[in-house]
């Protein structure tokens, strides 16, 4: 189910303001944020974000293709390191 067009994309004000501020000053420092639900709008392209995943911040450099996705999609919250092979060793 997509969001109603009337409301427009969900963009977190704070993040958006910070991006605009960076645009003015021309600095490209990573923006630290917890706003994983914030939609990536065209203004974000070329900026770097540090997106929280519940534990640490993932560096996300926004390219044009990412527009329309949410920031959180680029900061995985689960880590899968593979299954153990210990069972085999224990049996022998």
């Amino acid at each position: 189910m997509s969001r109603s067009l009337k409301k427009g994309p969900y963009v977190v004000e704070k993040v958006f303001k910070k991006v605009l501020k960076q645009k003015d000053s021309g600095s490209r420092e990573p923006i630290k944020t917890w706003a994983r639900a914030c939609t990536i709008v065209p203004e974000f392209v070329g900026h770097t974000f540090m997106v929280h995943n519940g534990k640490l911040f993932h560096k996300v450099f926004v390219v044009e293709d990412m527009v329309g996705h949410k920031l959180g999609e680029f900061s995985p919250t689960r880590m899968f390191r593979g299954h153990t092979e210990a069972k085999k060793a224990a049996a022998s």
Partner: protein
Amino acid sequence: MPRILGVDLPNDKRTFVSLRYLYGIGKTVALELCAKAEIDPQTKAGQLTEDQLSRLAGIIEADYVVEGPLRRQTQQNIARLKEIGCYRGSRHRRGLPCHGQRTKTNARTRKGPRKTVAGKKSVKEMR
């Protein structure tokens, strides 16, 4: 056998059923096509005239993405997701479902045939 865009349509099925043998054409589009080409969807595909066939082919080529181009489009969309490194892309890369389905059980379409792990507790034992 009438041919449309290089695909054989079965003779003895009704037109709107036959059209679905093209990749990218389902029930809705098939009926839409029949309406646009002013063909009775109930006539058997084998009885379509050359003129009707070319009309159908013309409409499909002009307004719809089917077969090869559609397959390519889908592949490109998936490649895009993989490239930008988003969650859905990583799910595609690992061959797991992308729409938030459970993977503890089921998800066999994406994961393929079961790989039994020796020593792993079965569902029965867990109870």
